[in-house]
């Protein structure tokens, strides 16, 4: 959820300054996307999500290839029964640790025990208001974003009356959660714009510290409240607290010493001007109006490849984070369809980056039949080195009503080997699971949706974030609580593929700190690849049948017999790869079979 005005389409042309600006940037790593290829997704008019009954607790629900298996209702002290969509109480983002889900929000955080995912039980509800409450976890530490002026150092709910006050807190709180029933705030690091979101950064070469990238998007506070904060609006004012992110260094053994160690000007151009990226405005006739790049909304780090993808209001950017205190921008893209660059997700091998556009700030209905399928959508880019190339868009392929806030929002990969599949939240548009392996033809394979909160007016609600974690999909519902969903097999996703996804497990999962997915050697992974080869005719049907038989035979053998059979199959697959129409997938299958032989 982003504080943004809701600006519908308006036809515009290049302004002189915009053109001049872009020319200057052309040499400074800005890739201009002239519109992505393959925006061929059609809105479905024959879809069970259309016409669902409205209601808070009794809205109609519909799912395809997904099943709602568990639900935890929002606790009473985390809601305003008089005003269901009350901004002060919205549920927000999720973080995961062991059998626990941390659900952040504008009023504090809730902790759910999910040892039985069919029945999430509330373990802790900790009132600590200040919005928007994004959580991250590292060992026994919980990091928590605060941006509103009502935020208090002591977590009090009464707000802060004085305009300049030592009681006010806007920034990142650090809790010790060793005793889950009594979270203890061990540090509270103040920042000028507060923290709308933040991202945990772990440097593999620095085990003594972790880092927090702070994205502040709201109003800059007064310099008399926090030294150094400045509200300069002019693009040439180098003292301004705009046009930067803040980096907090957290000594793991002494988190109380956490502090801001750098506020890099990551939008600067090569000449050092701090406002070096998109200055705001439209991109030409019939294009979207894109917000000025003076903030990141969210940054997703992918330490396995030393990169972060920043969704930074007017641009999507790539940061080299090998030196986490000094991230270096290596690429920046625009998309004339985007209003507000909101979030980013890498595919597992890092060759694609999916950015989401939160057109309307999450508070507006932007999935109406009249809203363009490329607006308020995901834009998928190919990435190679520091080059990003527009490859396609994905948007929830069914229209929603005027009473449903709906736009692309948070999600994560589903670890199906060999495919890029994501579960994504679309606010009151529900949950959409889609495949973007071929980014020009991203396709939905499963969904879950409820009717509007109210049939007469728009009450803020719906799914904030939807994440796969250790075998299930968890969805944070803004008003209704926590949902747990299970994937069901279909012609687009086999049971083997789902079972292979379930093999990938994490002790901790922070969605914006994207982990590398690695599959253990397993027959089910091999069969997942084989199912894909059959579905997409990547190999002849004679060969796929033979491979299935060989796998079944090998599995029944044990010891040296099994190893010999697997090695023989792997060698045969190497040969298959030379003639198969999808050699890459056959090679992946061969590699899996070879790993099985070594087990």
């Amino acid at each position, binding site marked *: 959820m982003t504080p943004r005005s809701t600006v519908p389409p308006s036809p*515009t042309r290049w*302004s002189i300054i915009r053109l001049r600006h872009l020319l200057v940037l052309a040499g400074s790593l800005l890739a201009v996307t002239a519109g992505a290829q393959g925006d061929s997704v059609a809105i479905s008019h024959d879809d069970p999500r259309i016409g669902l009954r409205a209601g808070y607790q009794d809205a109609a629900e519909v799912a395809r290839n997904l099943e709602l298996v568990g639900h935890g209702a929002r606790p009473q002290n985390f809601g*305003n029964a008089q005003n269901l969509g009350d901004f002060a109480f919205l549920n927000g983002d999720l973080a995961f640790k062991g059998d626990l889900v941390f659900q952040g929000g504008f009023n504090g955080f809730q902790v759910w025990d999910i040892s039985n995912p069919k029945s999430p039980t509330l373990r802790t509800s900790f009132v600590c208001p200040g*919005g928007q409450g994004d959580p991250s976890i590292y060992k026994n530490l919980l990091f928590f974003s605060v941006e*509103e*002026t*009502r935020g208090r150092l002591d977590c009090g709910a009464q707000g802060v009356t004085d305009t300049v006050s030592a009681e006010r807190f806007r920034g990142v709180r650090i809790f010790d959660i060793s005793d889950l029933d009594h979270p203890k705030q061990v540090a509270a690091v103040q920042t000028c714009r507060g923290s709308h979101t933040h991202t945990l950064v772990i440097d593999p070469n620095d085990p003594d510290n972790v880092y927090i990238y702070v994205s502040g998007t709201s109003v800059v506070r007064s310099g008399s409240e926090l030294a150094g904060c400045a509200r300069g609006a002019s693009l040439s004012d180098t003292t301004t607290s705009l046009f930067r992110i803040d980096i907090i260094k957290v000594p793991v053994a002494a988190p109380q010493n956490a502090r801001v160690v750098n506020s890099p000007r990551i939008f600067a151009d090569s000449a050092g001007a701090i406002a070096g990226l998109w200055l705001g405005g439209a991109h030409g006739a019939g294009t979207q109006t894109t917000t000025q790049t003076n903030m990141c909304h969210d940054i997703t780090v992918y330490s396995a490849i030393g990169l972060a993808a920043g969704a930074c209001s007017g641009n999507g950017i790539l940061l080299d984070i090998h030196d986490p205190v000094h991230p270096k921008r290596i690429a920046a893209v625009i998309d004339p369809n985007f209003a507000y660059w909101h979030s980013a997700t890498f595919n597992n091998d890092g060759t694609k980056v999916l950015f989401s556009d939160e057109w309307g700030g999450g508070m507006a209905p932007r999935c109406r039949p009249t809203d363009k399928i490329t607006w308020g959508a995901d834009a998928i880019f190919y990435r190679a080195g520091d080059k990003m190339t527009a490859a396609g868009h994905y948007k929830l392929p069914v229209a929603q009503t005027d009473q449903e806030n709906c736009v692309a929002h948070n999600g994560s990969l589903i670890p199906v080997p060999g495919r890029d599949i994501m579960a994504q939240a679309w606010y009151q548009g529900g949950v959409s699971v889609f495949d973007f392996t071929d980014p020009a033809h991203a396709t939905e394979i499963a969904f879950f949706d409820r009717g509007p909160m109210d049939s007469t007016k728009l009450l803020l609600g719906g799914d904030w974030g939807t994440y796969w974690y250790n075998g299930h999909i968890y969805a944070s519902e803004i008003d209704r609580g926590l949902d747990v969903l299970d994937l069901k097999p279909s012609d687009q996703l086999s049971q083997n593929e789902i079972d292979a996804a379930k093999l990938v497990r994490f002790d901790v999962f922070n969605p914006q700190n994207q982990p590398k997915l690695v599959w253990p050697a397993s027959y089910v992974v091999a069969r997942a690849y084989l199912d894909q080869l059959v579905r997409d005719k990547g190999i002849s049907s004679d060969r796929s049948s033979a491979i299935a038989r060989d796998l079944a035979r090998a599995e029944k053998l044990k010891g040296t017999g099994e190893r010999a059979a697997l090695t023989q199959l792997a060698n045969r697959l190497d040969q298959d790869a030379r003639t198969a129409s999808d050699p890459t997938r056959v090679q992946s299958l061969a590699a899996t079979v070879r790993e099985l032989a070594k087990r």
Partner: protein
Amino acid sequence: MNESFRAIPIVLALALIATATASAQNAPRYTAADVRFMQGMIGHHAQALAMTALIPARTSRQDIRSLGQRIEVSQKDEIAMMKQWLKDRHRQVPPNDAMHDHQAAADHSMNMPGMAMSDTLMPGMLTTEQLAELARTNGDEFDRLFLKDMIRHHEGALVMVASLLGTTGSAQEAEVFRFASEVDSDQRAEIARMTALLDALAPTGVTTHR
């Protein structure tokens, strides 16, 4: 953590429980300054609409026209939001029908009743005379004056936000904070855009103050 809550006299606490949920009662409420901010900003935005309504008849520049359309759309949305906020809280919604009537404002009069806001002019707002002056211009002259006036107008909105945040107890309700923050962010960015546009328009040797 809830020391102050415990300090609330029981009678008051019971009264609060009667009107709100146990959880909601503790949240900071909106203040008179919040209400004034919303009421004032409606008039402020409405004048922006009166200004953008002048555009079609006075300039053929597509960038100014587009700018005007964008301002119009966003300010209309925000006016609707502010009115709803006031309505939900049973506060007076200032009449701005006359201001809404762009065509009338543009074509007929600068001395219509709806413009008689000079006694309560918000920061950055044009006086009736200044608005009339803008309406008398055309072409290049209009483009420059429009941008100058709108930059000043937007800067006024920033002053209003700063003044709200500088008022004891204000912007503590989450929705007010969100809106004020949004106005601040949007108008800042739009000022930067308009300033650049104005610089590009200015004849050689002439630069704006920014």
